[in-house]
């Protein structure tokens, strides 16, 4: 273990003495974050609503459906897009085209059916394979449950009192009671954040993590160059004449890159929190998990680049190519939510997309630890893949 840390420490000294490191890891991401942030904010014309767009059609229009509408409008995950001329078929098509993240249709006669105790089949169009779809379904289910419970409560009151007129006040009180439920799970990390928390409406919510990830990959240039240079100046061969194994060498380099990336992330997140008013710390545990798995993943990529590149020029090329491909594909420049489902699915080949999903769940949607588990798992998978490829190549490469 000591030899691994010795190599890590040596790498970090070399990296911190290279001005390029700071250029890529700090200066450029901050500059581009600010630039893109202002570009996406429309020159400061006001905050946009970052919630997922969900088409909404109420064919009922009675009391219960209006109450349900109110519940849905309060969602912190999605916002209702109401078009008076919309049809169920049209909404389905818009979801299929990726114009909407989902669509909800309340059928005619729903209120009457609900009061009579009959099931009310809400129509929901959603891409079940998309994370956004699953998130919307979860929030919709929560709203439906509240509504169901309130209706059941009101019906019990009517049955006990024998007065039909008691239904509406009882329903109102039952729904109002949800504002202050008797049982509260304080430690949950998966419920939507309270109204006003998170960074909804901040134009940097996408650009800040996007640029951070893009330049984290670009910053692999210097890390890869350290490895290339070590091989070219024969220091690698010299290390191999000591009682140090190849795995120790590889882990030493890997750890250095991961630490460097974590340092970059911490500085940029602190910058985002203080200067850009992005609320990373609202879900500190989730932020930490996404940050760590992202660093492990990009660090693995850096290790692979360092092992593959034979010259400094190759190290630059091998770093810039994935930077452009993975960043653009993964939605670092343009959010995948506003692209079609097909492109969004293809985009998730890039680990950048998973990392952005994680950060967006925290920043834009105010979601907690549970919402970043899947993205983090994907990032960890990429990290293992990149590391194994690097180890395989390093083992095969002649010293």
């Amino acid at each position: 273990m000591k030899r691994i840390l010795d190599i890590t420490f040596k790498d970090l000294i070399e990296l911190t003495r290279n001005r390029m490191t700071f250029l890529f890891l700090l200066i450029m991401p901050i500059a581009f974050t600010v630039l893109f942030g202002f570009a996406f904010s429309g020159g400061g014309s006001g905050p946009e609503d970052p919630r997922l767009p969900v088409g909404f059609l109420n064919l009922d229009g009675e009391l219960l459906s209006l109450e349900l509408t109110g519940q849905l409008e309060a969602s912190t995950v999605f916002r209702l897009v109401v078009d008076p001329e919309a049809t169920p078929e049209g909404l389905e098509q818009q979801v299929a085209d990726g114009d909407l993240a989902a669509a909800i249709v309340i059928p005619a006669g729903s209120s009457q059916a609900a009061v009579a105790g009959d099931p009310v089949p809400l129509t929901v169009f959603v891409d079940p394979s998309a994370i956004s779809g699953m998130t919307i379904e979860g929030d919709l289910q929560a709203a439906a449950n509240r509504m169901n419970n309130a209706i059941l409560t009101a019906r019990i009151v009517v049955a006990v009192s024998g007065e039909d007129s008691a239904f509406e006040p009882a329903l109102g009180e039952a729904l109002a009671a949800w504002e202050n439920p008797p049982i509260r799970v304080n430690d949950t990390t998966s419920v939507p954040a309270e109204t006003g928390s998170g960074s909804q409406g901040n134009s940097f919510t996408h650009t800040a993590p996007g640029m951070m990830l893009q330049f984290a990959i670009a910053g692999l240039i210097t890390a890869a160059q350290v490895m290339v240079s070590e091989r070219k100046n024969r220091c690698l061969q010299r290390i191999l004449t000591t009682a140090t194994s190849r795995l120790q060498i590889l882990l030493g380099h890997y750890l250095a890159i991961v630490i460097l990336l974590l340092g970059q992330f911490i500085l940029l997140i602190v910058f985002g929190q203080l200067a850009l008013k992005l609320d990373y710390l609202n879900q500190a545990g989730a932020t930490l998990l996404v940050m760590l798995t992202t660093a492990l993943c990009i660090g693995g990529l850096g290790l692979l680049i360092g092992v593959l590149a034979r010259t400094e020029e190759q190290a630059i090329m091998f770093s810039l190519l994935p930077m452009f491909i993975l960043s653009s594909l993964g939605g670092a420049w343009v959010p995948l939510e506003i692209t079609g489902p097909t492109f969004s699915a293809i985009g998730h080949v890039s680990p950048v997309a998973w990392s952005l999903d994680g950060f967006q769940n925290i920043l834009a949607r105010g979601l907690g630890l549970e919402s970043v588990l899947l993205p983090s798992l994907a990032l960890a998978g990429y990290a293992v893949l990149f590391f194994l490829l690097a180890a395989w190549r390093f083992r095969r490469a002649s010293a």
Partner: protein
Amino acid sequence: MKAIEVTNLHKAFGETRAVIGVNFTVEQGEIFSLLGPNGAGKTTTISMLSCLLRPDDGDALILGHSLRKDPMGVKSVLGVVPQEIALYDDLSASENLTFWGKMYGLRGAALKARVNEVLEIIGLTDRARDRIKKYSGGMKRRVNIGVALLHKPKIIYMDEPTVGIDPQSRRSILDSVLALKSEGTTVLYTTHYMEEAQELSDHIAIMDHGKLIAAGTHNELVRIVGEADRITLSLNAESARLIEAWKRTRGVQQVDAEDGNLTLLVDDSNQVLPRLFEAAAASDVRITSVDIQEPDLEVVFLHLTGRALRD
């Protein structure tokens, strides 16, 4: 126990056979030189003995540790000075030595003390904090050697450590090699400089085209060519009569004619040369140039391979 016992070492790179059946033994505490031209297989041999390359066949015991069965054991008793300067340019001499000391297993106060000692030995204490990239070639070479001394290894491999440096640094390096020997360290030294092998070595092995073609002490090797002086002459005209006369001259062992030059092996050039001039005058032939070589490793190499060492 022998310091190094090499048995039937083979290594090929594709179709190129770099090392072919090399055998030699190095006693503890001696300087053993592998002498040969560039491409002879010296570096490949040392790379195998450092566990950097796996032999295709054969094995070696390094203080009893087998290359094949116990590479980590081999590495633990070695210090290696590679042919190239294997240092980190962006680190200072002190930082480089500290890092390499850790790679050799040194820690804490012992490491710090040893780094300072080595800086003293290589004469760079006052430049210890300067980054390597600011050093001259000779200074880099000294640090390169210093790295291998850090853990006081019982055996040090030095692969052409004096290539491309100024005479002063070269002298300093040769002196440090002799100092290592006086401390009981075994040194395996490769070079294509005959003078270095001659000055430093207890035993010398000559390599060419991947094969070890001769081995022994300097005197043993010189005896291969019969301890004769080699005189190379140019004449103003060809004369078969003169060649016959020289062959009969007392003290001349052999006369060869090639490319207009005559090469004679003689017992003692000081005594024989006047007789050669007398015979030439008698044959009415003028000697236009004379070159005398006393028996040395260059002559041995020429004798064994038909080529000069620096060809």
